[in-house]
């Protein structure tokens, strides 16, 4: 009971965090190491996205992926794909800002030292990632908490379709609506346990790489 919903939630969150981390970490490193025109404007946009209520992202994606919208031809609305996109959009600014903040002062130093030592680009990136792994762990854990618990956008663009796009957060809402408080409570408990487990693993991982 509800296992498929839990797995689907984790599956969506996994891809969202993967894409969110790829984009977020890249943006964060780029911002920390380079000086360029319009950096401040881009920063502002990033912060704007950070505080954007998820439902506005949902609404925007709904209009874009609706059959009468620009990407309607893909037929992605009410699938897990568009839910992954929404969650990745929520995760990216969070991860990039935390990456940037942890690199703001020491990023350039790490970069220049590594260059002096003759490190290749991918070695430099690895070095940087290793230096900021604590912040990255925090970023991913926070982003996970944000995306796994999101309801509004997930309902709007996922449609809360049983067996296809119903996830933990939307199922809690749907079951409560039907008066099944028991099921809703079980899902809520599972949500808490999973969050706990994931944060635990992130902590262990941070310790191991020390």
């Amino acid at each position: 009971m509800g296992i498929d919903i839990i797995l689907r939630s984790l599956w969506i969150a996994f891809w969202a965090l993967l894409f969110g981390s790829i984009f977020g970490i890249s943006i964060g490193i780029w911002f920390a190491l380079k000086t360029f025109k319009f950096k401040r404007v881009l920063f502002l946009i990033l912060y704007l996205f950070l505080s954007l209520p998820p439902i506005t992202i949902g609404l925007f994606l709904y209009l874009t992926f609706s059959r009468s919208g620009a990407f309607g031809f893909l037929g992605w609305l009410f699938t897990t794909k568009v839910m992954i996109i929404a969650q990745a959009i929520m995760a990216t600014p969070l991860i990039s800002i935390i990456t940037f903040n942890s690199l703001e002062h020491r990023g350039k130093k790490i970069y220049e030292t590594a260059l002096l030592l003759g490190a290749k680009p991918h070695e430099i990136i690895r070095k940087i990632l290793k230096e900021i792994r604590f912040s990255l762990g925090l970023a991913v854990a926070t982003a996970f908490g944000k995306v796994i618990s999101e309801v509004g956008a997930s309902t709007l663009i996922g449609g809360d379709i049983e067996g296809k796009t119903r996830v933990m957060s939307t199922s809690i809402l749907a079951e409560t609506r039907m008066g099944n408080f028991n099921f809703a409570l079980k899902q809520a408990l599972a949500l808490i346990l999973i969050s706990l487990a994931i944060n635990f693993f992130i902590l262990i991982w941070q310790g191991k790489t020390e």
Partner: protein
Amino acid sequence: MKKLVFSLILILLFVQGCAAKKVTLRLATTTSVSDSGILSVLLDEFKKEYPSIDVDILAVGSGQAFELAKRGDADLLIVHSPADEQKFIEDGYGKERIPFMKNYFVVAGSPDDPCKIQGKTADEAFKVIAEKGCLFVSRADASGTNKKELSIWKEININTDGKEWYIKSGSGMGASLILASEKGAYILTDKATFMTVAYNKLPLKIFVENDNSLLNIYSIITLNPDKVPHVVALKGEINDFVNFITSSNTTRSIIEDFGKGKFGFPLFELLN
């Protein structure tokens, strides 16, 4: 470079993993139909007879259901808002409207009946609620139930705008029932959702029922391909589904029986 290749592979896997196999129909319907559970029973039987057709239920208010259909995001509708249905067809979006089942709206409220509406007609009850200023929860979401409620206020010439006793929930039937029970407020609800969500679960009781003005008719509505062209490709599947809902013996017996075992009477009735 390595990273790029890696991410490309991941993106490919991602796209492939989501490829569609079956023909999927998207049925936009009201929360009252889906929350009562009858739709999942109907769909289970439908899937047995037509294994190649998948039906996705989008449970929204009637208002949103119409909008989804207009934008091309739904292929079929099951709604209960006759005036809106008429308009939807007149505007050219809807093609056919086939009523197939009914039940009744009821007025429910806190068991101590603070405004003494027990046994009154719906019009009388609403009048008393407004005069005494008893709390009342409105769906306020342009759903069929909400439209019915608004039409009653209009009929008895009462303006609820900004009234302190008038609570707008803006959510589905189940959530609104929960709100009404918490507030000790009255509420207009369809009987099926009331029985499923509130009966024996929430401190709410029915005070007004069996009022002929509270008839609630559910219809299935197909879309006009001139306005919503994508339905052409799904014509066969849509026909199968409409026939199943409106004229199969399976559906007839499900509607006649649904809820009998649990409540002693069926939650819906056939129209003829």
